[in-house]
């Protein structure tokens, strides 16, 4: 029998008290696309960082082609034919493609012949895989999809036989995902081995031939992809059965309560990021904003929630102008008028991570009765309320005195959601509600948003997860380069159609 190209035995790894990997065993066969699936924090990236030599395991062994190797640094892994495309690209933005690729493998002290040879070799590689990359282009000028290709090219140039990709589709449009999958399949046909780390079930089903599932630092199952289903994998990931679809009633649309007229907004660097945007949301409706990260969604939500200045245009709530370039209501005043905001950057804007859960649960209402009286906090009331609401929102662990940063992403998000939904807002602005949130919590959060809609709230939902937009929204707008480039009723819309709009080509 041929030994597997990569074999991990009893890998353990801890960060402080947290054991990220427990007794992991894994075999990956040559020439396959092997998926590793698991929720955020399940230890997938840690495990692969160990294989790439970036982290050192506390114990366990790694074999390549049956031979045990000692990986002390990424250099050892690269020499042994392992390449990794990280979730956050490891590129120097103001370097050229060529400089990024040869970095660390220049082969000469002073640039000369070898640089020329590298260039020729790379051009050949580009042709073989149809990469269409300009080697002299600066990284900061390239789109995310191209940067990813540079990463792949970098690994191939360094002689990778095993290519690990960590959540490679998170930042891509559906078309770019298609392109990437095409590249990965052709690499497989060449005899390369691909390891795909993801939390997206659909990618596993589409692309892989074998799949391993991780949960809470442990490997909980291996199977051939053809022998399993999305539902079964989801159950293995979460440890219980989950509903992958959202049940949604027919829309009961009320009158328009939130209106944005010709809005333009600048970012901190004085670049106009939202350009002349018009939109309306009715009571009982979810309006989804689709778009690739960085096309103005962040700035739009910030302006609507009163934390960023409006450059021009105006915002109306119940027919009353609440913001234009001269006046704006601050978030607190907006809250009093019935507007709530679940910010997309949970850690930075949604929570104070070093505070205890009960403090974050009432933050913003802390100076109101019953939480405080005459400027003194009423801890008994707060604890009572926290216990109740944490049970209601299924926040785990149910301990109001725990520091917020110790909760998982999904539970942190539930804390924010409970706070923002507490006063039954009329308008709800939601950014990336399930980024870094596990499947079980996603199900819960989605259901809460639908409940709010059915109760008659107007909801604006910005998300880079197209599935989320498609399953929750009643109407969808697409943002590209700060402008609204398309609007569709959510009936028979496909992700392909939206993808073209998101890429700015339609």
């Amino acid at each position, binding site marked *: 029998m041929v030994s597997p190209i990569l074999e991990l035995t009893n890998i353990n790894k801890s*960060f402080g008290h947290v054991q990220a990997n427990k007794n992991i065993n894994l075999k990956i066969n040559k020439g396959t696309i092997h998926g590793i699936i698991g929720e955020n924090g399940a230890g997938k990236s840690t495990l692969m960082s160990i294989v*790439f*030599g*970036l*982290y050192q395991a506390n114990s366990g062994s790694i074999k390549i082609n049956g031979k045990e190797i000692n990986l002390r*640094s*990424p*250099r*050892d*892994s*690269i020499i042994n034919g392992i390449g*990794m495309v*990280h979730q*956050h690209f*490891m*590129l*120097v*933005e*103001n*370097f050229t493609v060529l*400089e*990024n690729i*040869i*970095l*660390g*493998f*220049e082969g*000469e*002290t*002073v*640039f000369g012949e070898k640089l020329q040879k590298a260039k020729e070799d790379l051009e050949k590689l580009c042709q073989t895989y149809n990469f269409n990359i300009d080697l002299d282009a600066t990284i900061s000028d390239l789109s995310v999809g191209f940067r990813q290709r540079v990463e792949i090219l970098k690994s191939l140039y360094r002689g990778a036989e095993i290519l690990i990709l960590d959540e490679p589709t998170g930042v891509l449009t559906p078309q770019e995902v298609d392109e990437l999958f095409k590249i990965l399949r052709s690499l497989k046909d060449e005899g390369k081995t691909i390891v795909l780390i993801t939390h997206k079930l659909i990618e596993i089903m589409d692309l892989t031939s074998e799949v391993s599932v991780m949960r809470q630092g442990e490997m909980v199952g291996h199977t051939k992809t053809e022998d399993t289903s999305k539902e079964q994998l989801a159950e293995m990931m979460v440890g219980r059965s989950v509903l992958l679809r959202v049940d949604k009633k027919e829309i009961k649309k009320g009158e328009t309560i939130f209106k944005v007229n010709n809005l333009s907004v600048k970012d901190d660097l004085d670049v106009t990021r939202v350009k002349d945007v018009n939109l309306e949301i009715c009571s009982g409706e979810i309006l989804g904003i689709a778009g690739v990260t960085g096309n103005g969604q962040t700035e739009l939500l910030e302006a609507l929630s009163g934390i960023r200045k409006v450059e021009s245009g105006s915002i109306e709530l119940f027919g009353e102008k609440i913001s234009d370039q001269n006046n704006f209501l601050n978030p607190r005043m907006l809250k009093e008028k019935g507007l709530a905001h679940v910010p997309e950057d949970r850690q930075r804007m949604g929570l104070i991570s070093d505070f205890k859960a009960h403090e974050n649960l009432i933050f913003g209402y802390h100076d109101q009765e019953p939480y405080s009286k005459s400027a003194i906090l009423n801890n008994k009331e707060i604890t009572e309320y926290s216990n109740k609401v944490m049970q209601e929102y299924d926040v785990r662990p149910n301990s109001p005195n725990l520091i917020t940063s110790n909760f998982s992403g999904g539970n942190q998000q539930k804390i924010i959601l409970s706070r923002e939904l507490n006063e039954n807002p009329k308008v709800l602005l939601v950014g990336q509600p399930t980024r870094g949130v596990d499947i079980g919590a996603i199900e819960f959060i989605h259901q809460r948003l639908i409940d709010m809609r059915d109760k008659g709230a107007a909801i604006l939902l910005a998300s880079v997860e197209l599935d989320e937009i498609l399953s929750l929204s009643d109407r969808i707008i697409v943002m590209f380069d700060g402008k609204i480039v398309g609007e569709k009723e959510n009936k028979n819309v496909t992700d392909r159609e939206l993808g073209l709009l998101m890429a700015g080509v339609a």
Partner: protein
Amino acid sequence: MEFLSDIASLINSTLRISTPLVFAAMAGIFAERSGVIDFSLEGKMLMAAFVAAVGSYYLGNPWLGLLLAIIVCVCLSMLHGFASVTHKGDQVVSCVAINILIIGLTTALAAAWFGQAGLTPTLNEDQRFLEIHLPFSDALRDIPVIGTLYSDILSGHYVFVYLAYLSVPLVFWIVFKTSFGLRLRAVGENPSAVDTAGINVFTMRYKALAINGVLIAFAGAHLSTAVNANFFREMSAGRGYLALAAMIFGKWHPKTALIACLLFGFTDALQIRLQGVELPAIGEIPVQLIQAIPYVLTVVLLAGFVGKAIAPNAIGQPYIKER
């Protein structure tokens, strides 16, 4: 002809005055391009001046004094690296600590060894660097233009002046034409990219700091064993900070940093020249006002006169490998 010789002497002093700035700016480029802030150029320059003066006084050879200064400055750079690279301390705090330490240490050591707080004995001709007169400079002096250029501007400088201006193309070559330079720039922009390319981020930063220590030692030795013949208290007089400003103004690039250093050197040369000169209608300008020119210029330039300076992306951030 007097006008021409005025200009020549102005350029001559500009070159001389800019010399420590050029060394310090080049030293700063290495540290900061690797992602380590170096406010301690000032302190290290002062320390180098002290060590070079003491070293050549005892050893009788200015080159040995320079060598000692290099060793001490590299050690100080390593200390900065130990605090801020290995132990991930705050880089600015580490620099400030080094600067304060050295101001006190040089004064105290001078007092202990020579009985005078912050003053070392005057060096004799064998113990210091002398001006180098290029061949035929006397013979060629009377030839118009070329003679002035050769004999009055190019000739008659200390060895450090020539070394400083030779170091600029060398630094440029290292930073932009060698694989070491590529790695150096990468480690200051995105250390994770360097780490995943299989290069040790910490080693790279230590190497950069070692070069930084060597270069800054030249600046100090120039002050105490060439231009002056002894060390005196706080003789670096803010030149380290001025060089840092020049480096930022030059956008961490050797060529533009050189221009900035020359500009600062020129204003300094000009203020010396202007002292005591009566200007028509205004009269004599107070000397304090003139001496302030280089510093005012620094503030004006850095306050955005030259556009936004874009620092290396990862500057000031210790590299944390595991979360």
